[in-house]
């Protein structure tokens, strides 16, 4: 922390209006097994310092992996030089006021019962083996099984010109099983199941998250895909599961709420605070400190600008209420800072990003949701998605069911949903009571070249009218 404080002092001496300095020392370990072969046993160390200098409304960023005073000073000089050079080009000034210092405490680090660093590689390979063995038992015509285990933990330190002192440990674990099976015709289908987030090793003893649970669902899901029909193309009523609802919240609404898109007016949510865009069943929030024990997710008590995080509701029963901010965008847009300024690695400048993003639950059971759906597509899990600046989105579900009169009739594959989020939110007709957040080590969010940033996403199941599904005509 002394080194960071010296960096801040030096930046101020150079003439910066405000300086932020952060250090991270992270360990990332992962194992990958493909069929019988242990392909990658990895132990990464990520350690370095990043410095932001603010000057007359502009900012500059630099970083170094070196711990030497000389290299750190050079990083501060580069950051200030860029900040100064950028001033003539800055027309949206994102400076902010000093505030009382923020001080972390021990309770800011999420307590785990079994820290993964105290478990041997053999215990971790054993988790992977158990998942894969169970997948084999429950699958059919399997051509490839992949098992992955990952863990991330380490120290994040931060100080700034407010003289905040923040010191906490970031923790994530993840277990994944991916099954590829071959149909009689020789076509390949797949399914993936996982469990992860901020948790200790004890997560994998919890009901629903054991290696056997993961392997069973992965194997059974791939087996179901063997007889799945291609999803028809067209507009249908949809029931989306918790993870896909989370993808919707993250990709198509969350990104548009990130305030760097708002201040530049490139988001269609610019100037829309107080506007009703969605139905009363559509409430979307972002939260760095969710109830991890009950719902899962990633624990992020502070962002990389030293702001405490919490729950920010961006859409409240269909009305736009708040954006996701850095300190500068919060001041510019006259809202509270939300603790959403993050970077994937010390080599990158923190920018507005999400933490755990979700739809809030409603009051339906799954049966009631299927009944409300009537006839349409039940889309399950997510293979990822993409959104454009005008709100257009595309998501790929991992699987699905064709539902008729509230009954699942047959499995579907290649389930892709597309549309415009601003239209879709008004067609959310109901949400279930069950609620979960998915987070983990593998994958993550990408933005401005910063990938993969660990994020959580989730929600209840949602019934949505008139969703466009791509597929064979």
């Amino acid at each position, binding site marked *: 922390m002394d080194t960071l404080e010296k960096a801040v002092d030096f930046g101020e001496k150079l003439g910066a209006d405000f300086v932020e300095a952060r250090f991270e020392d992270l360990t990332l370990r992962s194992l990958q097994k493909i069929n019988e072969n242990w392909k990658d046993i990895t*132990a*990464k160390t990520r350690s370095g310092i990043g410095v932001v200098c603010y000057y007359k409304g502009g900012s500059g960023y*630099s970083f170094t992996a070196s711990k030497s005073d000389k290299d750190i000073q050079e990083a501060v000089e580069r950051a200030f030089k860029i900040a100064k050079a950028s001033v003539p*080009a800055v027309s949206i000034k994102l400076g902010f006021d000093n505030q009382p210092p923020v001080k972390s405490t021990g309770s800011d680090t999420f307590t785990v019962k079994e820290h993964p660093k105290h478990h041997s590689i053999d215990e971790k390979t054993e988790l992977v083996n158990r998942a894969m063995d169970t997948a084999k038992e429950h699958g059919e015509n399997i051509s490839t099984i992949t098992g992955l285990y990952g863990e991330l933990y380490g120290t994040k330190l931060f100080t700034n010109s407010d003289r905040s002192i923040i010191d906490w440990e970031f923790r994530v674990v993840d277990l994944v099983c991916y099954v590829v099976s071959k149909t009689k015709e020789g076509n390949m289908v*797949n399914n993936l199941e996982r469990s992860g987030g901020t948790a200790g090793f004890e997560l994998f003893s919890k009901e629903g998250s054991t290696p056997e649970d993961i392997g069973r669902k992965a194997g059974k899901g791939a087996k179901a895909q063997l007889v799945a029909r291609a999803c028809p193309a067209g507009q249908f009523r949809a029931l989306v599961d918790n993870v896909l609802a989370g993808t919707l919240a993250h990709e198509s609404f969350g990104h548009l709420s990130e305030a760097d898109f708002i201040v530049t007016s490139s988001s269609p949510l610019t100037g829309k605070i107080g506007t009703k865009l969605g139905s009363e069943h559509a409430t979307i929030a972002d939260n760095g400190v969710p109830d991890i024990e009950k719902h899962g997710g990633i624990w992020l008590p502070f962002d990389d600008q030293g702001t405490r995080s919490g729950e920010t509701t961006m859409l409240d029963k269909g009305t736009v209420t708040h954006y996701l901010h850095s300190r500068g965008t919060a001041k510019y847009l006259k809202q509270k800072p939300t603790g959403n300024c993050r970077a994937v*690695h010390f080599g990158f400048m923190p920018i507005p990003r999400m933490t755990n993003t979700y739809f809030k639950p409603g009051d339906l059971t799954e049966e009631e949701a299927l009944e409300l759906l009537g006839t349409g597509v039940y889309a399950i899990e997510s293979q990822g998605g993409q959104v454009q600046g005008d709100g257009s989105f595309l998501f790929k579900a991992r699987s699905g069911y064709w539902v008729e009169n509230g009954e699942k009739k047959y499995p579907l594959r290649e389930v892709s949903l597309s549309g415009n989020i601003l239209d879709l939110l008004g067609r959310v007709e109901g949400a279930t009571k069950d609620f979960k957040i998915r987070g983990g080590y593998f994958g993550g969010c990408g933005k401005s070249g910063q990938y993969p940033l660990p994020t959580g996403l989730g929600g209840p199941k949602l019934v949505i009218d008139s969703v466009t599904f791509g597929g064979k005509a």
Partner: protein
Amino acid sequence: MEYDSVKEEMLSRIDTALKYAKSVDKNAECEIYLLYINSCNVRIQDGVVTADDGIKAGTAVRVAKGKKVSFAPSSGIELDSIKKSIQEATAIVQKLSVEDPRFDSFCPPSGAGKEGVFCSDILDVDSAYLIKAADNMISEAKSVDKRIKSVTASCSAGWTGFAVGNSTGLQQASRIAVNSCNVYCQARVGEERRQAGEYDISRERIFQHENLPTEAANKALSFLGAKKLDKTEVMPTIWNNEASASYILAGLGQAVRGNNVVEGLSPLADKIGDEIANPILSIVDDGQDATSIQTHAIDAEGHAKQKIPILEKGVLKNYLFDHYYAKIFGAESTGSSSRGGAFSSTLPYEDTATVGLSTFNVKSGNKSEEELLEEVDQGIYIYDSPMGIYHTSVETGEFSVVCPQVYLIERGEKTPIQPVSVAGKFYEGLENLRAIAKNIKKTPYAVNTPTIAFDGFSVVG
């Protein structure tokens, strides 16, 4: 470090570190990869400037003892960091009880290819130049039309050096200097928003940003007033350079990677010698294309990079391999080991080496793009990489994407339409390819390609 001396300095550290690795465990083999990126990146979005200037450097060490292999990357390339990684990786293999029965050895020496073109002017590009260039692009774009409401301009310049050494005696290095600019314009009328972008990326000269903003702005404006297609049917689709580059990269590009072939994920396994595409399609993966930004003297495990035919007149000729997967398959490495890239993290040294493309060069057709469009009674023209194309899985080959920038084509007449979904199978598409234009363009997707027209995809709009 300096550009002129980076290779020698890194190779010297590798030499010292390999000796250290032997002292830690004389029965273990070791591979060391060092990466040094010195870059400056500027982005201006409507008056908000984000800029960084710094050095990303890292070490990636693999240690193997018999069939037990570990991987330990870390930040920095000081000798202390390298030694720490060696200690970490060695400690892991010494404790491991699981192994990779297919592991043979680290890559043996194979010499080196050519680094490619170097332009020393790129080394002199600094943050002030980049900020000015980005600012000029914003001004140019905004001056085109008052309906251009949002402009994002990015410029970057830098150089990279990397070096690889291992216990087989391989010690090689390579370096490159690259600069680039891109600009995205959003046109708005009421609630309608349409966007388009242009770019220039080069290792041969300083990027040329003039006129790109005007082209991007006019393209964005051309999509305004788009009507709904109101159809769901199978129809011809014409994919412009960037769109067809993404099609090839996401489909064929993944299916010919040796890791996907060996692991049973590629539907093109056992298809060498088969006609898998229209005979008008020929593609070469050229790791020695002197002007490509993917060209280096060596790949990520130190093997010489090469030029490899992938498709010749529709016939599948080769897969791409690194040393590991080549050995399993019973072939030779094609110099296709890579770290990082489009589907990986932003710190290449943190990724294990796997198989990647160099530059796919698609052979030009003999018609202009306009001629291709005139031959279509009714179809769609896709401008830019569709949404979701990289979320497809190589094993199924099925894709369903959304094309936000798209025109209806009727005998050469272009009418902007609202975003449409396009669905089909990558591999069937190669067989149903109807025409290739002659407007080859270098795209940022490691694929240099003309516009390509396909039959047989479903369009929903």
